């Protein structure tokens, strides 16, 4: 097996190969490090590469596996983290000049869990500055590029996670999602990303953007790999005030249960056509995906999208208010330290009143009830993940996102679990993602639908040519 073939293995395949002794964790890690060195100069997906640590962890995993101390499917698997997960003694920058020299003295709870199951840390990944705004073109680190066309954005804010996975620089990753930041780069880079239920994964040690909307979650190259990662990081954590003490089912074990008779709701009316609407090629690809779900036995219904459309407005108000509150002192002292994109977006929060914030929280109560009421008639919602394919850096319009429907925001507002997986490509070879949303704490349902779709299609097997 060549180093490139090794670094492109799924976690599932790599875990099997390690146990069959076809290769070692050191071989896997070296393959990823070699690929990072050879191609990441075109993508800028990594901010920090922890090569020495990774090789040390890989050697340890190799010894443990040889000695029969098997810690499960992530043992010896090279992964990388969005650079807002606190990592003890490893610089954690949030892609910002504000934190460019910050070296945490602790690990995020999820990082501790990944260490405990023997994962190998390759390094820290680029993102939108502080997980907000757009690509960080004036930050101290270059903006991440889309591997399918480097003139295009990779989506954010977990941009490095999307780009690194799509190009075989790591086998798994963690992102974070406050308005779509796991799902959008998953869609734009043609990988799989799961935003779990609010409270399912600890946010302890994840630099906050908006406390009541932030979700930590996995990204990978397959649905099964995403389930493996979520199984490892999910669970109650007393250090996170929002953590939910709800048992986690066997996510991987339930993948293959099929979707015959499953009721799928499509909230198209009053949402997909909002303002400039959904890109027609994206919607056509999405419609093809619906036909595949029907072919697999699902029953597809159209439902009203009005409350989903309004959710973006509440989400944005809460997000900007909370984000500004977190950074207020830094903005008062040195606003110039923030990049132009995040500065413009976050400062909007300075001009919201306490009453405005409470209005958005009251609207959240109403919209949450309206959206969740649909579950009396359907088991899942499906939408395109993004309303259009990734745009070119040259033509980014910062106001564009307000002129198109946001398919991701409503599920931060409601805290519902939502997964994005590849569902096609435009004629310009840019990826399109399918979003599947389930009831609270029913990640297994979203995974089951995603797995059935993935197994019936070939989109996840395509690789970008760099």
């Amino acid at each position, binding site marked *: 097996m060549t180093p490139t073939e090794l670094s492109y293995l799924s976690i599932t395949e790599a875990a099997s190969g390690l146990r069959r002794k076809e290769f070692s964790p050191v071989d896997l890690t070296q393959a990823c490090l070699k690929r990072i060195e050879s191609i990441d100069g075109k993508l800028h997906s990594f901010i920090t590469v922890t090569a020495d640590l990774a090789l040390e962890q890989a050697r340890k995993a190799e010894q443990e596996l040889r000695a029969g101390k098997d810690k499960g499917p992530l043992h010896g698997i090279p992964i990388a983290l969005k650079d807002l997960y606190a990592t003890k003694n490893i610089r954690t920058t949030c892609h910002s000049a504000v934190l460019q020299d910050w070296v945490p003295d602790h690990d995020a709870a999820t990082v501790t869990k990944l260490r405990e199951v023997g994962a190998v840390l390759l390094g820290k990944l680029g993102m939108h500055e502080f997980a907000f705004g757009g690509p960080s073109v004036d930050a101290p680190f270059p903006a991440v590029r889309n591997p399918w066309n480097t003139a295009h954005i990779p989506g954010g804010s977990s941009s490095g996670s999307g780009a690194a996975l799509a190009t075989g620089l790591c086998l798994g990753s963690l992102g974070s999602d406050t308005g779509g930041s796991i799902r959008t780069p998953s869609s734009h880079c043609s990988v799989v990303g799961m935003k779990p239920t609010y409270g399912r994964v600890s946010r302890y040690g994840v630099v906050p953007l908006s406390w009541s909307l932030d979700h930590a979650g996995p990204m990978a190259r397959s649905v099964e790999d995403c389930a493996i990662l979520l199984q490892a990081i999910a669970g109650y954590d007393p250090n996170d005030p929002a953590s939910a003490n709800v048992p986690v089912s066997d996510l991987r074990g339930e993948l293959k249960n099929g979707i015959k008779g499953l009721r799928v709701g499509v909230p198209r009316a009053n949402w997909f056509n909002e303002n400039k609407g959904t890109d027609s090629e994206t919607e056509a690809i999405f419609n093809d995906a619906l036909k595949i779900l029907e072919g697999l036995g699902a029953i597809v219904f159209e439902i009203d999208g009005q409350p989903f459309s309004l959710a973006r407005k509440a989400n944005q108000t809460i997000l900007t208010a909370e984000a500004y509150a977190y950074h207020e002192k830094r903005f008062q002292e040195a606003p110039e330290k923030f990049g*132009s994109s995040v500065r413009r977006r976050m400062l909007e929060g300075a*001009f919201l009143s306490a009453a405005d914030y409470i209005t958005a929280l009251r*609207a959240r109560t109403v919209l949450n009830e309206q959206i969740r009421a649909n579950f009396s008639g359907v088991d899942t919602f499906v939408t395109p993940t993004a309303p259009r394919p990734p745009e070119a850096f040259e033509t980014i319009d910062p106001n564009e996102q307000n002129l198109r429907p946001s398919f991701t925001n409503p599920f931060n507002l409601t805290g519902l679990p939502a997964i994005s997986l590849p569902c096609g490509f435009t004629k310009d070879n840019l990826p399109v993602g399918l979003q599947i949303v389930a009831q609270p704490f029913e990640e297994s349902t979203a995974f089951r639908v995603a797995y059935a779709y993935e197994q019936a299609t070939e989109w996840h097997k395509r690789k970008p040519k760099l």
Partner: protein
Amino acid sequence: MAKEITLAQLQKMAERSGLKLSDEDLEKLLPGVNRSHHQLLELRELITDSIEPAAAFVTSRTEKR
């Protein structure tokens, strides 16, 4: 329809918030600030007096030693 916030008003609001922003920064901010105020009008349409904010405060007892 709410009145648009002007650049002069935004300057005053920024000062009150302890922010030292350039005119250029404020000009870039203005469309977004006005957009978010218009959005709030739509959100206000949704709520009635009986609706509480989606925020929970949970008190807990401290055990006596």
